[in-house]
């Protein structure tokens, strides 16, 4: 079992205490946090300081839009030159109607690449392993997941409990108060999953 890759999850009902817990954890130097919420919330964002590093989705959007416009230009101008047929004594390449096509292509490809950007940036399918997620997060619960060394487990648990968590899970197992040992018995099970999936994520979380 990798001692440096332990996950402890605190589940909250109230946002204000959650925010306080986040602040406390960060003050204690635990930057490797992940917060779950059923709704986007500015207080949480502020506590996490996510504004420091804005989303990269905009680059996808911008490049997609430029690419789309270029595709539109190619479509219209090149096909017209390839097949020069006169209608109504108009020039072969007549720009005004082409602007509409170019515009639509820009929107289409720009929009699709934004979606792609969203998928790539948030890596939705390869996120948190199911045992570290609680189904109530999409209902009315909030959660803090801390990735830490096994040494820090107790300290974090204490912080979470200090800020009035509903419950604490360590590596996906519910931890009653003062029953830290039982968790260690589950080590083998947890290891399999963590080895494969958690490692890159944990580094990613650090980056955040």
């Amino acid at each position, binding site marked *: 079992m990798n001692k440096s890759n332990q996950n402890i999850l605190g589940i909250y*009902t109230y946002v204000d205490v959650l925010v306080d817990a986040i602040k406390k954890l960060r003050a204690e130097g635990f930057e490797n946090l992940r917060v779950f919420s*059923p709704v986007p919330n500015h207080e949480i964002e502020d506590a996490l300081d996510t504004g420091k590093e804005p989303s990269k989705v905009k680059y996808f959007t911008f490049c997609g839009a430029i690419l789309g416009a270029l595709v539109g230009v190619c479509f219209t101008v090149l096909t017209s030159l390839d097949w020069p047929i006169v209608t109504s004594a108009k020039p072969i390449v007549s720009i005004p109607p082409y602007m509409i096509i170019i515009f639509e292509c820009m929107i289409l490809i720009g929009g699709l690449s934004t979606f792609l950007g969203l998928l790539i940036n948030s890596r939705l399918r390869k996120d948190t392993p199911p045992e570290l997620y609680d189904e109530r997060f999409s209902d009315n619960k909030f959660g803090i997941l801390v990735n830490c060394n096994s040494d820090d487990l107790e300290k974090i648990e204490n912080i979470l409990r200090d800020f009035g968590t509903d419950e604490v899970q360590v590596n996906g197992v519910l931890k009653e108060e003062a029953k830290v040992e039982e968790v260690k018995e589950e080590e083998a099970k947890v290891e399999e999953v963590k080895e494969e999936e958690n490692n890159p994520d944990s580094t990613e979380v650090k980056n955040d």
Partner: protein
Amino acid sequence: MSNFDSLSASEKYSHLNETVMNMLNKPGWGWWAIFAVDMMFLAFGIYCFIYQIYTGLGVAGYSHPVLWGVYITNFVFWVGIAHSGTLISAVLFLFRARFRMSIYRIAEAMTVFAVATAGLFPIIHLGRPWNFYWLLPYPNQRGLWVNFDSPLLWDVFAVSTYATISSVFFFIGMIPDIAAIRDTVVGKAKKVFYSVASLGWKGSSWEWGHYTRAYFYFACFATPLVISVHSVVSWDFAMANTPGWHTTIFPPYFVAGAIFSGLAMVITLCIPLRYIFKLEDYITMDNFDGMSKMIILTSSIVFYAYLIEFFIAWYSGNKYEYDQFIYRAVGDYALFYWIMMFCNGIVPHLLWFKKIRHNLMILFIITLLINIGMWFERFNIIVISLSKEFEPGSWGLYKPSWVEIGITVGSFAWFFMFFLIFVRTLPALSIAEIKEILPVPKKNGGSSHE
């Protein structure tokens, strides 16, 4: 209502999830009965279409010189309906209008299904519908390219872009909600379905970060798109030289009309939905109030356009244009013209009265009338203009045939089929976004809005 208000913030969150989950329960006999009737109409519509393909377009009522009729009317009508969805989800999102939250999912669903319905008509109305793909520009063995000068090709691009973008937009908005369903739904197959559809959404803070940015950019794209699509549709007419079509007022007039009819359709759909699924806690009078006010605004724009068309026809001194508008008011199709004037110009102004805005029965009837009026608006523009053009020797009248009526009814059945499936399978209320306007659960200092 009071019951809901007495709940704590956290309980309200749960209540919302439960409400949405309840809508996804196994449907009762009532739903199945409606669905079966809907399928019958759809089957008849499909039969009509097959009959039309097999026999030839002549089974429709077209009569020289009116070569566009009910099918194109339906196309413009459905494209128009499709507009309010994206408007509510994108434009009102950018304007941070709070009343959009609880209805935007329904509106978006309506948009996607309306585009799916609208998209059928350009194919149905073709003389050789089996060759519809000839309108797509792709390198082909025939060695042909398409004519990018043609407004119909702009339509191909605009409508398909709109269909794609609004579907993706619809889907993106639903991801957190599908995740919520995934978390509570019972049954293995359903679990798998919603897991896949949720794309593994967990609601972590950085997912939300990218998500809100992406949603914002989408809204930024969708807004000009909404305006462009109906402008392009209006150019189908405005770019032609036909009197009654060839006018610069069409793009804004069509966009306003589209939003107008779309809003009316959203209200038409929301009122029974709210009643059946007991959504009074979420779809509130404030929602209807806000939409009613937008209807007044758009109705005024449309009505202004009706009147200014007359003014221009007179002021321009163009004989063809002048005759055309006189003909609209007093000619063979005058009844339809005055239905349109009454439903779109007069009726919506009842909504100035708060009592009417808050009487859902009357509101429902008003929106139905607006839907009818807007259908006839398109019919009038298309059919009346074509029936009397420049050359008096070629004038003629058009009367729809049973095949056209069958396909039109079928198209409504097609739309409602999607909608019926939608309310039973996907979250009809936007869970995540309604939570944004619900009070935030807080231990200290009570609950407050963010």
